[in-house]
């Protein structure tokens, strides 16, 4: 069964995109959209088929993975690239949850998007996204990964601005795309750096790994280290864009303007983790770049802490989750920064489940409240929507790292690796642990404000509150199971290391190399587990004390934070504004108003000079036609005379 071709996996969503896109365009002219049943069935069927293929392949995958070169892509002097796929331990895990969660969320969307005018268009975009994401994780070289990389960015743009009647949504979409573009340029330049080092063949992951091993065994690391460090930094810039790390993180909170399933799929579970995937994929290269690794760790730490704090101040339920995503991504980067790529991918994996569950739960809440997103107008929903509440609470336990739930295993692992990472390890560990406490606080706040206490919305809206339909609940429940049990794939304390073993062929050697660089005293893992549990309990306790009985301020107009909270939340927006946008605007103004006017003035001056000269020439023009003829005859005569006398001028 394992001889299924790899290209089947991306093919299914691509076919679905084309089909649904055609349906969307054709049906757009009519009064009613296309039949939702058919569209929904198509939209779920194709990703599900992809998932089935992935599952079959994953089951029978040889340890070294499967490689398949489809065809040549670019072939010019100096540069060659193929379209090729690689299915190994890392791609397997990514693909399993990308297609799996993708299918579930597509199913959920059928209920969520019910009645929307752009129903078919939405699913066309979602399938295009899945196609791009699959290409991203399945490709065997950086250039093809970049295709998926920009492809998911493009789909993110399309889906954030899905409700394009509202200009604010479009602006959020534009922001997401442009900020990502900045990162993408880093990615592009990083590839060029690599090509400079080892030719275009090195863009292939296998070739890169063997190249790195070659220079390591030959002891030439110092020679290429400067260029490789630059390469690493450039790729990291790309990752900060896609994975919303400092400084390119402002787009993710704004991206919540899109439909909630999109936020769950793209901006929580899959796309934003592609930065982490890339770090792990290039692990062999990053492992020999200590400076870059340190930068990654510090950036990840700052992001995790800053976003957790910002999450405390949000009133919009989706914004809380957005900042929480950024914060969790910070954890993953911290792990990658200490070369614990398997731990960081493990957190990607568990995070995909519980964050998707949280988002879908939030979506169900928003759906129940007919579009209300401000938590100050919620409350007491546990009675009205019990299933949603249960799902959200399980996912809440997972994200704060409550013992036994998925997040507990992965977050503990990251903190443990942080502690063991060298002399600065304990400091990283303390900050990570502190961030975990804040995580528990803001998530506790979200749960308390949404599900407990009294309902704070208007009376009329209270009557309409209803539980979501089954096709929305089913994916949520499945994800909630994932949020509980996904962690048991790698439960160190009880001796299960399945996940690590399956990743070992890909990232094992890089991590082994990094481990030789520093050795830390062995600490009993139970201590970490205990401290982690303590952090979660402490955070929950604080949340209960602070928000449990407090009066919630009445909601005013906008759900955006105000005052000092806003300063903290929008800090990086200000940074972007003053370091990026305004300088460009000033430059554009100079071009438009100064340079262009100077050029126009020059043009006008030249024109004026020509006109004046022409006016001058008319003076010698005589009035009578006859005289002109006489002059010209005289002129010819004079010329003939001159030629005759001098024997030719030339």
């Amino acid at each position: 069964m394992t001889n299924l071709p790899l290209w089947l996996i991306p093919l299914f969503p691509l076919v679905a995109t084309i089909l649904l896109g055609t349906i969307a365009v054709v049906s757009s002219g009519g009064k009613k959209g296309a039949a939702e049943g058919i569209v929904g069935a198509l939209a779920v069927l194709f990703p599900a088929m992809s998932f089935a293929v992935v599952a079959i392949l994953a089951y029978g995958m040889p340890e070294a993975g499967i490689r398949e070169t489809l065809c040549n892509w670019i072939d010019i002097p100096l540069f060659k690239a193929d379209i090729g796929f690689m299915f190994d331990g890392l791609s397997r895990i990514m693909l399993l949850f990308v297609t799996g969660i993708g299918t579930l969320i597509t199913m959920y969307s059928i209920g969520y998007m019910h009645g929307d005018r752009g129903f078919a268009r939405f699913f066309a975009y979602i399938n295009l996204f899945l196609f791009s994401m699959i290409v991203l994780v399945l490709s065997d070289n950086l250039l093809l990964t970049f295709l998926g990389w920009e492809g998911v960015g493009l789909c993110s743009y399309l889906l954030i601005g899905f409700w394009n009647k509202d200009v604010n949504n479009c602006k959020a979409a534009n922001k997401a795309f442009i900020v990502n573009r900045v990162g993408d340029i880093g990615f592009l330049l990083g590839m060029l750096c690599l090509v400079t080092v080892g030719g275009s063949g090195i863009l292939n992951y296998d070739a890169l790994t063997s190249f790195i091993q070659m220079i390591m065994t030959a002891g030439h690391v110092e020679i290429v280290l400067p260029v490789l460090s630059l390469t690493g930094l450039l790729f990291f810039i790309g990752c900060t864009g896609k994975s919303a790390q400092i400084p390119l993180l402002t787009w993710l909170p704004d991206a919540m303007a899109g439909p909630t399933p999109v936020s769950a799929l793209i901006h929580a579970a899959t796309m934003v983790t592609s930065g982490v995937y890339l770090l792990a994929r290039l692990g062999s290269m990053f492992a020999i770049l200590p400076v870059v690794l340190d930068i990654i760790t510090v950036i990840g730490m700052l992001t995790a802490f800053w976003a957790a704090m910002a999450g405390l101040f949000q009133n919009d339920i989706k914004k809380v989750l957005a900042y929480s995503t950024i914060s969790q991504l910070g954890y993953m980067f911290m792990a990658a920064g200490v070369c614990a790529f398997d731990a960081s991918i493990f957190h990607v994996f568990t995070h995909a489940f519980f964050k998707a569950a949280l988002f879908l739960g939030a979506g169900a809440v928003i759906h129940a409240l007919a579009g209300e997103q401000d938590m100050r107008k919620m409350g007491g929903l546990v009675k009205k929507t019990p299933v949603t509440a249960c799902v959200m609470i399980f996912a809440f336990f997972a994200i704060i790292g409550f013992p036994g739930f998925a997040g507990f295993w992965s977050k503990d692992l990251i903190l443990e690796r942080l502690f063991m990472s060298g002399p600065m390890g304990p400091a990283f560990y303390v900050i990570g642990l502190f961030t975990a406490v804040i995580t528990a606080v803001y998530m506790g706040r979200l749960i308390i404000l949404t599900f407990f206490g009294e309902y704070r919305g208007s009376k009329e809206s209270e009557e309409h509150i209803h539980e979501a339909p089954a096709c929305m609940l089913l994916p949520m429940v499945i994800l909630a199971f994932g949020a509980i049990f996904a962690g048991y794939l790698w439960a160190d304390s009880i001796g299960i290391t399945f996940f690590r073993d399956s990743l070992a062929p890909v990232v094992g050697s890089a991590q082994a190399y990094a481990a030789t660089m520093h050795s830390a005293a062995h600490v009993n893992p139970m201590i970490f587990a205990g401290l982690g549990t303590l952090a979660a309990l402490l955070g929950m306790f604080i949340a209960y004390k602070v928000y449990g009985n407090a009066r919630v301020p009445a909601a005013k107009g906008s759900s955006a934070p105000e005052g000092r909270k806003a300063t903290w939340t929008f800090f990086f927006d200000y940074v972007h504004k003053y370091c990026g946008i305004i300088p460009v605007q000033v430059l554009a103004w100079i071009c438009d108003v100064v340079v262009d006017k100077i050029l126009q003035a020059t043009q006008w001056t030249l024109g004026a000079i020509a006109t004046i000269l022409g006016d001058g020439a008319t003076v010698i023009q005589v009035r009578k036609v006859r005289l002109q003829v006489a002059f010209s005859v005289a002129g010819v005569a004079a010329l003939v005379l001159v030629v005759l006398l001098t024997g030719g001028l030339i």
Partner: protein
Amino acid sequence: MLLHILVLAPFIAAILMVATSKEDPKSSSRLAFIFGLAFVALSVMLIAAGNKATDPIEWFRIPGTKGPVYYYLYSHGLGAWMVFLSTALSLVALVSARVTSCKNYRNFAIGIFALMGAMNGTFLAADAVLFFFFFEAMVIPAAILIAGFGGEKRREAAMTFAIYTLVGSAPMMISLLYLLTIADNSLLLSLAMALQQLPAGTQAAILASFLLAFVVKTPIFPFHGWQAITYSEAPAPLSAILTGAMSKAGVFGFIAWILPIFPLNMGIVSTMMWLGLATAVYGALMALRATDGKKLLAFSSMSHLGIAVAGVFSLSEAMLPAVLVLLVAHGLCAGAQFFLMGIAERMAGTRELDKLGGLAGNSPVFSTLFGALGVMSLAVPGTAGFVGEFTVLLSLWDMGPLAALVMGFTMILSAAYMLRFIQKVIFGKASGSYDNGPRTSGLEGASIGVMAVLLLVFGFHPAFVTDSLHLFDEEAVEQMTDAGKDASAEEAAEADEGDSEELPQAMTPEEIAQLDSSLKANGFSDEERKSLITQVVGAEAALALESRVQAGLDSAAAPTNEEALNKEASND
């Protein structure tokens, strides 16, 4: 034969169009469509046929020059693709104008055909005088069409356009004439040889005059004064042709005429490259502030062509295919965008960005195309634009990281202005009072859709485009005949001069001599030899330029500019 048809038949088609009715666009549009389709088919055949040349026909002699002017056409990958752009965009223009400007369709079609013939001639001419003739001839139908069918300020636009481009190429005419008094004939090789005999100062002056003509046509900052007003005032179908095909004549001139003829030194190369990059940034910044949709597209075109010119003067090995793909992608994409902007203008009655909006709700098919092509112009991977821009970026990276960074900055800016453009035109709420002109017709939508599909196809399989260059190389080598005598003689002459900037020779004299003798046995005539030399030199000069630049570097006593240093560093 194919070449003759592609150059001459458009003029015949233009004459035949006179026979159709002036008032009723039905018959004339059908005839024009058939002609247009035939030309597209022919241009595809031309691409498939690869390297081709006609027999040189002596056309006339300019008094005071040594050799005759030939009517002599040849096609190689670059020219053939440019011809494809010119015919394809003309066809779509004819389709699109059917709905847009019904008032005097016949005359519009006549103008388009004349323009197409002139453009094809420009891209296929092997003789410098013939090239110049067509290069100038393009301006006339274009200016007349602008003056006849343009917007409110059409006269001003036509005047600016004509004066800029004609004045820009006037110095080129003079220096070409001067070169012809020295050269044996006006073919590429003899021009290059003639130039070698001149003192350095004269060479520089001639180079400057040639550069000026192409720089104005492309246009490159600061000679872009005509562009914005022309593109915005011209009827949208014509703007599409102007940017998609005619502006390529400038870049084409750099590749096909400047690079083979002139021994460029590092200073000029890097100046031109930085001018190209400055154009790219300037165009992008201007596009950010543009309030007129067509002006925005005009500046966006300028930005992309700036990148193309920078790519040309990066002179890396990958330059030729990279720039070719970029040009094809830009031609299709910018062309389609102009058509779509024309449709938007027709539907809404305005092209002010602030007054547009909400067309997504009004016309879904249109806005799907509009959004798709807008995104394609951002060089998203999987579209031809990406292949072009990435490979050009690769070439620029060789020249130094700073150049690549500037280009990266341009790519970010392009996202900023293009997304703003898309948002302003199709998203948001409709501003209410639209004229509700005719919507996208089926044929129009289909033809633009085909262009979008082509962009995707070339994005995933650029070999369709780049292979036409390979084809050229191999065939050129195969056809390499007894060019040896002239070429080796020339090389010897150069060796005597001790000039380090020799004409590049991809083949060694021994190889040429071998081929020479073997082909002499086959009995090729003098005329055939000459024509083949020209073709071969045209190809090889571009490819071997890299080595020439290297040679120039070695000889330069003090490589003052940074690029030279970077270049050396990166080679180490």
